[in-house]
């Protein structure tokens, strides 16, 4: 008997053996990796991009931030699913060091009677907005980005930055500000009285052009409950202008906290 993994590995390596990494692939990566961020000003592009961004904001203005984000990612049908759920506006805030975390809302979509593996049945969604606290002079950067990436553009999701777009580093120099990487990701949820950590949780993030970050989350297999208790892990640390993360002694700036919040659906 051949184990399933052996069967699949053998079949894929045999049938897909024509798929090979070539020197061309390697050269493409090398060339791309060494591209320098473009800094030239191009006002027309900035304006047209800003117009598109504003248009998007206007369309989404009537939607809660969470619904607007998932609509942008997955389309109108997803937005309708979220709109059919229970919206729990919150505006709870927490300050960690010089960063403020504001939990804007949570949305629960109950049992839709469909297969949980591939649908939106029993899902919990939400958004945390991250801003500098009390006017702190910071440039916030989300994870996965380099300080030389264009600030405020989700380049990993195909958003194209104009050549003129300043990088996080440019902004920090311009404002004489610190660069701080900040995150807010749920790490657990209370189910039947037990805090389930390592529960299947998805998250993503986006920027506002005012420099704030939004972290969005989705937690599957959460049935309708009288209240929802979530462990939100918030943390932040400084990145130097050389790109070094200050997360170790003797220059450790890493702050982290488990923020536990209980959310109750509004009374009908």
């Amino acid at each position: 008997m051949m184990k399933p993994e052996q069967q699949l590995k053998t079949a894929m390596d045999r049938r897909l053996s024509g798929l090979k990494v070539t020197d061309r692939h390697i050269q493409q990566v090398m060339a791309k990796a060494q591209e320098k961020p473009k800094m030239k000003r191009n006002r027309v592009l900035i304006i047209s991009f800003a117009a598109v961004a504003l248009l998007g904001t206007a369309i989404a203005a009537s939607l809660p931030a969470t619904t607007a984000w998932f609509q942008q990612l997955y389309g109108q049908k997803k937005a309708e699913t979220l709109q059919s759920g229970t919206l729990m506006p919150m505006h709870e805030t927490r300050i960690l060091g010089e960063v403020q975390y504001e939990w804007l809302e949570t949305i629960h979509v109950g049992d839709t009677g469909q297969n949980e593996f591939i649908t939106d049945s029993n899902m919990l969604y939400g958004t945390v907005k991250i801003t500098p606290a009390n006017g702190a002079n910071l440039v916030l950067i989300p994870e996965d980005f380099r300080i030389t990436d264009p600030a405020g553009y989700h380049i990993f999701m195909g958003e194209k930055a104009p050549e003129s777009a300043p990088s996080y580093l440019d902004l920090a120099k311009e404002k004489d500000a610190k660069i701080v990487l900040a995150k807010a990701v749920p790490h657990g949820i209370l189910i039947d009285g037990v805090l389930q950590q390592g529960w299947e949780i998805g998250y993503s993030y986006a920027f506002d052009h005012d420099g704030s970050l939004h972290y969005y989350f989705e937690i599957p297999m959460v049935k309708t409950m009288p209240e929802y208790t979530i462990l939100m892990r918030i943390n932040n640390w400084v990145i130097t202008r050389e790109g070094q993360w200050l997360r170790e002694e003797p220059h450790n700036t890493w702050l982290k906290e488990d923020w536990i919040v209980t959310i109750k659906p509004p009374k009908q």
Partner: protein
Amino acid sequence: MARRVPDERPPDQVVGELMRTHGDRILRLCFVYLHDLHLAEDALQETFLKAWRGYHTFRGDADPLTWLSRIAINVCKDLHKSAWHRHVNLALSLDSLPEPSTPAIETDDTLIKSVMALPRKLREVVLLVYYTGLEKEEAAKALGISLPTVYRRLNKAQDILKQELEGWHDET
């Protein structure tokens, strides 16, 4: 776990070597996930770019293939969000590939197409655990899901594959 001594070579040298060693497997993983050769090549490029950028954060606690698979599956998930490639004819998709350099047998196509047809959440677990050989705990971390969820999805995938594939589990 003991940490490996950080590789002091320049990143281009290290990433080039990683591409030569693990690139084929990452490219095949991306193809089966995304059903499209061009998208798979994009995902390959993005995976190694991220590896390049994040090399300073790779401390050597994990096997490089584990680390790269983890990046690749998340790159594929991002690419998969584009709607236009969701309805691909799997047979045509396989036919678009370069000729195998190792002779394939008929059941290979059947098995690969069945895996490609699995729901995305099941497919990604199957690929990480069965194809790239990640431990189930590593797959859970890579996907940001719990270990029981990995087991549950693997069982579900097994059930589907057993129904569709005569001889799944049997030596062929």
